[in-house]
């Protein structure tokens, strides 16, 4: 065996991944060649340097907790999606009561309406707001299931905006916020509060953000109201023309930035 071959096999030899015949050939060569023995010493030193436990990256305790929470959420959503479609509208409430599994329908209905309304809202005082918040949260969660996110997948607002024409009796503003780090990935028609609304989907670092938009018939109040429901952030304000509801699992600060950017348009 020559040095060049020995160098190729040395690493596998030290990993104990060579068959017996090859191992013996490497051993023989090492016994004869000082340079390759030095290479072996260096490889061994490199190995122990790489196995330094301090080089191993550790997730923070906080991250582990967040991960556990999102797994639990996924399990509950999965339990939900296995149920027949007529229970779909109970979805928001049953995020909380999912562990009950198959509760007789009548009992579930009572629990869901109570628990659902209680947990979603306490920052948004008006009961009408509470109903809408439940609906947009349900719309957001439904949109995360495979194939439900977008009707028109496009990062071009000149594609997304015209797509809504004919489907809605209003024209939603579709601002391009890419320079601020918000990628438009598409749009979808959704139903909230008994009416068709525009849902714009923006993305940042894998997090999807649903922006629900429809004409505002109340007085304008650009104060951003916020709510935190089971790991999701919900933001809401009434613009001069449109009312906005923003939902995502993105952290509060970044989502508020998006809300302010949208409000400025």
């Amino acid at each position: 065996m020559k040095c060049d071959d020995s160098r190729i096999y040395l690493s596998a030899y030290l990993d104990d991944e060579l068959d017996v015949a090859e191992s013996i050939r490497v051993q023989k060569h090492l016994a004869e060649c000082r340079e390759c023995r030095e290479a072996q010493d260096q490889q061994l030193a490199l190995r122990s340097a790489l196995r330094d436990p301090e080089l191993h990256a550790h997730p923070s305790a906080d991250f582990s907790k967040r991960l556990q929470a999102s797994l639990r959420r996924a399990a509950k959503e999965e339990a939900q999606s296995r149920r027949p479609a007529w229970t779909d509208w109970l979805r928001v409430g049953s995020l909380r009561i999912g562990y009950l599994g198959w509760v007789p329908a009548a009992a579930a209905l009572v629990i869901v309406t109570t628990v659902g309304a209680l947990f979603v809202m306490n920052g948004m005082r008006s009961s009408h707001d509470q109903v809408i918040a439940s609906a947009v949260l349900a719309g957001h969660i439904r949109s995360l299931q495979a194939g439900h996110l977008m009707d028109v997948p496009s990062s071009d607002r000149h594609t997304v905006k015209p797509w809504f024409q004919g489907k809605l009796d209003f024209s939603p503003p579709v601002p391009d916020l890419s320079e601020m780090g918000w990628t438009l990935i598409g749009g979808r028609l959704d139903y909230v509060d008994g009416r068709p609304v525009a849902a714009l989907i923006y993305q940042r670092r894998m997090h999807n953000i649903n922006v629900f938009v429809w004409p505002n018939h109340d007085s304008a109040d650009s104060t951003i109201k916020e709510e935190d429901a089971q790991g999701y952030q919900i933001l809401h304000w009434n613009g001069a023309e449109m009312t906005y509801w923003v939902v995502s699992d993105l952290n509060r600060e970044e989502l508020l930035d998006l809300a302010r950017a949208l409000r400025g348009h």
Partner: protein
Amino acid sequence: MTSQEKLGRFEEQISPHLKSAYNLARWLTRSHEDAEDVVQEAFLRAFSAFENLRGEDAKPWLLTIVRNTSLTWLKRNRNAGAQVSIDESPQDPSEPSPDPEEILLLSCDREQVRRALEQLPSDFREAVVLREMEGLSYKEISTTIGVPLGTVMSRLSRGRDWLRRILINPDTSLSPVKPEGGSGPK
């Protein structure tokens, strides 16, 4: 299996490998923040595909998902220019002084090792991380990164040789590494 039972088994079989998953994602993305996003997505994918795990070892199965999620994530979130990878002929750092009498000492300074590993082209980096930090066998690495056994062997050998040369001469600047071929026009 109800969703709750599935969650229970998942937490029993998969969650113990969170550290390994995170470590791999951290070394592939080279950022703690990115690693969290990647692991979060990989775990949700693993959860929805959990029924497909039958009798295999959970750790390489999970690491395969983490690895694929990392690569997709990198493609989607980084300009191609920032991403380094290696084709089959990287520019190696030069072999130091040929003086046969001089005993070449390898620097084991932790920060130098960390820097060297971060700069190792990603195809080699993942093989080295899976082997040295996660203790996977060549066969498991071959399954995880989807290349033949011979390629695993050669990547490990060349990757380690690259590291070795850098660490013998830690003060020399690194040779430029070509940006990933897949990013430009073909």
